């Protein structure tokens, strides 16, 4: 009787033991799998962030390139000098990426050179195949931008609102409308752009109104965001050269655009200062008697009224886009003209 009772207890204990051991083993493997999954997610985010950062930073060495990046599915947020994917973020000191606040993969990246008149930096335009850009306006600048953009980006061009309204709205996750004022096209918040536009969510649509100056290299841009009933009050910014205007097209918020613009201007000041110091060296080393003393007048310092020094000084200090453009490209006094004159005289160039 006692033997049978002991056997029953042992069998019951065995079952309990197996249950506990099994649960422990299951828990061990489950926790390993969960840990591996979270590590893999984190690694994917870090790799993606590293890739984007490397593109942002590496753009300095490539220009005029367009790439489509098939990356793992992710939503990338761009802030002022910050790139964020999920919980991971990468701060940068001088980011020159024009993009929407949130971009979904796959990404399309295009780089261009920004020069004034010497090369200052490369700018990166980042978008996705889910963002459509609609350019409206019977305007040379609008046609020029539409023509110059790589086919990979979704750019549509309509000379008028009527042409745009006649076409059905494409089903893209984001729509960026760019209105070029002039040539009969105007925009007020009450303008009907497309009858189906009201059915789209506010976060899906944004609008940019471009007012270019006669030289087309400067002008203003108004950033509008959609609300349930219409458009927000515009935030107005300036642009300097077509590359910056294209930047405003790619950027959906005023703050982000201003941040990138300020980074470009900081870089302009650094590069202009280096060119100015180089000019000073050329000036002090070509004083008579020197085989190149005929060139010396074009290298003169600011204190003695040298035009190139005045132009470099403007590029280093001015915030007025009209003045900056004149210092670079004025047909008589601009740096580009002085550089051409130096080339004709077989003198060392300014840039």
């Amino acid at each position, binding site marked *: 009787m006692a033997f049978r009772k002991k056997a029953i207890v*042992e069998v019951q*204990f*065995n079952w309990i*033991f*197996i249950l506990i*051991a099994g649960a422990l083993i299951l828990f061990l493997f489950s926790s390993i799998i969960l840990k591996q999954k979270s590590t893999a997610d984190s690694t994917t985010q870090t790799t993606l962030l590293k890739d984007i950062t*490397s593109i942002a*930073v*590496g753009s*300095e*060495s490539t220009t005029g390139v367009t790439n489509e990046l098939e990356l793992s599915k992710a939503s990338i947020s761009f802030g002022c000098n910050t790139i964020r994917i999920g919980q991971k973020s990468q701060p*940068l*000191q*001088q*980011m020159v990426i024009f993009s929407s606040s949130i971009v979904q993969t796959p990404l399309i990246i295009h780089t261009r050179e920004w*020069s004034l*008149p*010497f*090369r*200052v*930096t490369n700018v990166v335009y980042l978008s996705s195949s889910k963002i459509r850009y609609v350019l409206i306006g019977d305007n040379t600048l609008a046609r020029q931008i539409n023509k110059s953009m790589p086919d990979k980006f979704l750019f549509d061009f309509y000379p008028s609102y009527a042409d745009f309204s006649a076409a059905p709205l494409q089903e893209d996750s984001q729509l960026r409308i760019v209105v070029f004022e002039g040539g009969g096209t105007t925009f007020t918040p009450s303008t009907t752009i497309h009858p189906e536009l009201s059915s789209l969510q506010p976060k899906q649509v944004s609008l940019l109104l471009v007012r270019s100056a006669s030289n087309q290299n400067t002008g203003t841009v108004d950033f509008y965001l959609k609300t349930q009933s219409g458009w927000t009050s515009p935030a107005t910014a300036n642009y300097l050269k077509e590359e910056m205007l294209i930047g405003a097209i790619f950027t959906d918020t005023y703050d982000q655009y201003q941040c990138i613009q300020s980074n470009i201007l*900081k*870089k302009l000041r*650094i*590069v202009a*200062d*280096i*060119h100015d*110091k*180089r000019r000073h*060296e*050329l000036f002090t*080393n*070509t004083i008579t008697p020197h085989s*190149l003393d005929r060139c010396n007048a074009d290298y003169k310092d600011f204190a003695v009224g040298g035009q190139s020094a005045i132009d470099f000084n403007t590029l280093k200090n001015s915030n007025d886009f009209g003045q900056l453009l004149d210092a670079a490209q004025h047909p008589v006094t601009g740096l580009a003209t002085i*550089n*051409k004159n130096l*080339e004709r005289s077989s003198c*060392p*160039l300014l*840039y």
Partner: protein
Amino acid sequence: MQMGETIAVLVVFFFLLVIGMVFYVNIATTKVEESRYKNTELEAVNVMKRALSLPELQCSHNNIVDEACVDRYKLYAADAAVEANPSAYFDLFGTSTITIFQIYPAPLSGEEPVLLYDFKPATYSSRLNTSTPISIYHPLTRTHAFGLMEIVTYGK
């Protein structure tokens, strides 16, 4: 007796599991070390490419750029600019040191090596020294000297 057997099986099972884990962790650590070294190598190449494409250094004639060429006058000015704005260049060069030497003709007075960028971390796991030949252009004499750009990258 049966319970003893079960315990013995479990002991052997966990013993094998621990051996497996140790083996896996060792392989993973080796892989991490390998990729860390590879990253340092890649970073050195990237830093070199970025440095050689800086408008602050490049030789240009009306915006037409000479590859792997550094303008002598720009170099001296850029040295001061990088020192004055270290944070602006940290994105480009990270934890590295960039030095430019003239090799031939032998440098004269005033043509000493230029330490363009210097951000050496207090502690680092690896250090990689890379050099690339460059030409150093003198805008007044319009002559090119042969030089080296030496890049030291530090792994975290």
